[in-house]
């Protein structure tokens, strides 16, 4: 890579300002086109038939009656999407999840699909498809699935990562372990040890826009896919492989995306829509209902976590251990592993061990949800840390400051940290007025820390300079929350021109090289790096063109504030040439002026946040109210601070919903009982206070402007911060998320009856 990504010392003109986003007007006038807002001539309506059973063998599917219904143009089953995965296990799982092959593995698993002339006909056709199921015993609970003797979900899964290869299949796909030092020695040096078990329930990303796509396969084998996705290039790759096409023949255009948070990183219905279109010979529009989104897209894991942490009297942590069981849905996963990596990432530990188990359950295939797997691990760890601070007799913040990771600390998951923000966020919290504000009866304050890796990945951009001097920036990372604005700012900064002169768009997969998807908080981090690189390449051309116009050597031309300057006294009479002036002459100096960049954006700086929360609990009902909430997070350089704040606030709000309310509820029959926004209640406006934010800017040394990703870390601390606040308000340690009113009441009652029996039988020390 002919590009130096290291941080350079500079003052900023555009970066750090707060202009209005380029896609804003379309979004406030209803003009922006999302997944379901696009139509093609002759388009059919696609609908998916889903299993009502949590676990069942599909003995046969009779589609004859549905096919005979007037207006039905295609009916497909797994037979129409043959297995072309060539031994790629992960891709096979994606295929099987798109349309069940031998067994239905969860309530909502797709088994067949139709394309018809309208929605009503399609719905009728679904009713005419006859599926012969042999219902099997199921298991939806992560702890039950972990037990020996639980109904076996996948006969081909033999636990990986054990010293001896197991002889029998099980529901545990994999065991992973991280850490260093000697935890036994560490615990033996501890004066206090806390051991606790925690559970979190499964939640959904809850994006307001259901999955939607329009697929069109032509008889010459060319295809188009319009879809709301976080990763059009990844969708293209998966769809093309599953349909047996060359990637270049499938053009994927990402629509405006109505929220994803990790949930739109997987193909679900897109290969099905393409297969329907291929069979029907017409475009097919497939839009999930909300019920389908809950039952059959990719929620996050339910977890069960054991934590043990020991500390000396002086507050030094001597050892820490975690065992994490994460549900993956009915397929292999890596969710517990990520949890095991993040669990203790905030701390400087000599002796640490984390073990993760990936557990199969009859629930939908787990997908990423904003800093996937980290919030649950942080909940368990940060709750235990709080309790341990209490035991040691230290303030919760001071205890964390004493043990916080620093530059040079070996992280529990392996690498050695560069400059990081955990210490500064803790210091900022310690000094924040929120920490001093008075509390009333039944109110409690909690704080907690969170970590996320951040990710860079494959990225490319095109920067084209028009003859009028306007700049179009084509990026390949989907804009999920304002990145077109932030990337325009970066292009303007590097070129030295006005923000208004730059227009950023998200390119389709035929117009730009491969890009990884917008995940891992990489959108602004990686595409800004590529934008800077592309702008520098364009500046090189601009300098050459100016040199040509002046007829002097290009080496004598420098670029400053959007102008070419001839360097040296001998050129004293040459007045600077603006980008606009150079662009206007481009037709006669060598043609269009552009800068391109293809790179792997390494060096995404790790990110830390600390949150503070005040909660009021009604001891009669168990109802809670968030009174005040503060987010402190390191952003590296904040490119568009308003959108950085927005990421902080949005992540905190999702975490609040997760902590207090949201959960998948399965009945004994293995069916999801609350597949709608009425019963799966996400926070509404009246549930929340204003969410205060404080942006710290600790530059990332591996990015020219010091940018880090900011999108995900904000969801990591809330579960723990709120659990600590509730625990402080009611005087009982909360260990099960969400802390819904019945759960809080139960915890209160359990503690009152424990106190009563203690007072009758005398107090025993555990």
């Amino acid at each position, binding site marked *: 890579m002919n590009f130096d990504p290291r941080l350079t010392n500079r003052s900023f003109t555009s970066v750090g300002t707060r202009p209005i986003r380029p896609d804003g007007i379309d979004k406030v006038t209803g003009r922006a086109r999302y997944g379901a*807002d696009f139509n093609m001539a002759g388009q059919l309506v696609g609908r998916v038939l889903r299993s009502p059973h949590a676990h069942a063998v599909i003995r046969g599917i009779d589609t004859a009656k549905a096919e005979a219904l007037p207006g039905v143009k295609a009916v497909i089953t797994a037979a129409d999407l043959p297995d072309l995965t060539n031994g790629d296990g992960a891709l096979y799982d994606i295929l099987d999840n798109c349309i069940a092959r031998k067994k239905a593995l969860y309530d909502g698993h797709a088994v067949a699909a139709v394309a018809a002339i309208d929605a*009503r006909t399609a719905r009728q056709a679904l009713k005419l498809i006859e599926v012969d199921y042999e219902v099997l015993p199921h298991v939806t609970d992560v702890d039950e699935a972990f037990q020996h003797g639980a109904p076996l979900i996948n006969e081909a899964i033999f636990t990986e990562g054990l010293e001896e290869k197991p002889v029998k299949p099980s529901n545990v796909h994999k065991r992973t372990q991280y850490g260093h030092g000697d935890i036994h020695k560490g615990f033996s040096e501890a004066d206090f040890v806390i051991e606790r078990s925690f559970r979190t329930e499964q939640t959904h990303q809850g994006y*307001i826009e*259901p999955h939607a796509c329009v697929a069109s396969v032509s008889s010459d084998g060319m295809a188009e896919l319009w879809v709301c996705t976080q990763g059009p290039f990844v969708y293209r790759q998966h769809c093309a492989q599953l349909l047996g096409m060359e990637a270049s023949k499938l053009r994927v255009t990402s629509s405006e995306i109505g929220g994803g948070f990790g949930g739109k990183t997987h193909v679900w219905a897109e290969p099905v829509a393409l297969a329907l279109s291929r069979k029907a010979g017409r475009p097919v529009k497939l839009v999930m209902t*909300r019920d389908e989104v809950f039952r059959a897209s990719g929620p996050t894991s339910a977890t069960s976590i054991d934590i043990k942490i020991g500390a000396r009297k002086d507050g030094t942590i001597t050892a820490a251990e975690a065992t994490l069981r994460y549900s993956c849905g009915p397929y292999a996963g890596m969710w517990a592993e990520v949890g095991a990596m993040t669990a203790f990432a905030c701390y400087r530990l000599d002796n640490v061990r984390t073990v993760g188990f990936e557990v199969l359950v009859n629930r939908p295939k787990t997908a990423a949800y904003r800093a996937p797997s980290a919030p649950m691990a942080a909940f368990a760890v940060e709750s235990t840390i709080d309790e341990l601070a209490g035991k040691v007799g230290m303030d919760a913040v001071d205890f964390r400051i004493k043990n916080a990771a620093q530059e040079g600390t070996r992280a529990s998951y392996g690498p050695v940290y560069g400059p990081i923000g955990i210490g500064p966020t803790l210091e900022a919290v310690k000094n924040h007025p929120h920490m001093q504000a008075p509390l009333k009866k039944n109110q409690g304050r909690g704080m907690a820390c969170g970590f996320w890796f951040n990710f860079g990945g494959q990225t490319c951009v095109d920067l084209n300079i028009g003859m009028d001097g306007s700049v179009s920036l084509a990026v390949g990372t989907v804009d999920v929350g304002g990145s077109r604005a932030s990337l325009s700012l970066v292009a303007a900064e590097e070129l030295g021109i006005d923000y208004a002169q730059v227009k950023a768009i998200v390119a389709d997969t035929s117009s730009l090289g491969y890009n990884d998807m917008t995940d891992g908080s990489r959108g602004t981090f990686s595409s800004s790096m590529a934008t800077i690189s592309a702008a520098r390449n364009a500046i090189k051309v601009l300098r050459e063109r100016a040199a040509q116009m002046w007829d002097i050597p290009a080496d004598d031309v420098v670029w400053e504030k959007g102008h070419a300057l001839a360097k040296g006294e001998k050129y004293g009479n040459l007045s600077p040439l603006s980008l606009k002036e150079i662009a206007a002459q481009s037709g006669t100096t060598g043609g269009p002026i552009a800068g391109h960049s293809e790179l792997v954006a390494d060096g995404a700086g790790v990110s830390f946040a600390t949150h503070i929360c005040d909660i009021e609990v009604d001891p009669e009902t168990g109802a809670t109210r968030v009174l005040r909430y503060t987010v402190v997070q390191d952003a590296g350089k904040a490119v568009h601070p308003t959108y950085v704040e927005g990421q902080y606030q949005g992540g905190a*709000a999702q975490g609040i919903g997760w902590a207090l309310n949201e959960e998948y509820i399965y009945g004994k029959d293995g069916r999801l009982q609350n597949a709608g*926004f009425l019963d799966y209640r996400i926070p*509404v406006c009246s549930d929340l206070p204003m*969410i205060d934010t404080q942006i710290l800017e600790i530059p990332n040394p591996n990015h020219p402007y010091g940018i880090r990703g900011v999108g995900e870390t904000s969801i990591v601390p809330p579960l723990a911060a709120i659990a600590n606040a509730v625990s402080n308000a009611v005087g009982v340690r909360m260990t099960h998320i969400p802390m819904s009113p019945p759960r809080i009441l139960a915890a209160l009652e359990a503690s009152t009856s424990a106190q009563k029996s203690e007072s009758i039988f005398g107090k025993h020390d555990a």
Partner: protein
Amino acid sequence: MAGVAVSTTINGDHVEYLCQPDETLLEVLRDRLGLTGAKEGCGTGDCGACSVIVDNRLVCSCLVLGAEAEGRQVETIEGMAHGDRLHPLQQKFLEHAALQCGICTPGFLIAAKDLLAKNPDPTEEEIRFGLAGNLCRCTGYDKIVRAVQDAASVMRG
């Protein structure tokens, strides 16, 4: 099934359409009339993304039948700006970055317009309860509430 002939007013324009008796107003707007500004987030009245105003009443268009629009005045997001002049709420949503993905935005703008028509000087709490029928998953509502407060003060003059 025979269609129902409907004659109505949408954003001040006279509109006629045929729809099925069981078709929702949201389906008519989006699929028959090409007015895709109202979004379907749930189809069950729980998210407010489909909010429109019918005869000065805020409704979820997914819960109204297309046939029920007969003879009424329907306002959608497409009618909120006057030409290229944005409504103060639209302007303030932009200035305050009260949208991230923007899928909830049309519904919020319509609901906020209805709220301010009924209560031009709402408290923060009145805004929060007034907009509690609209879900936003991106913003945490903070900037939405501030945008509405700011727009209200501009509109009061």
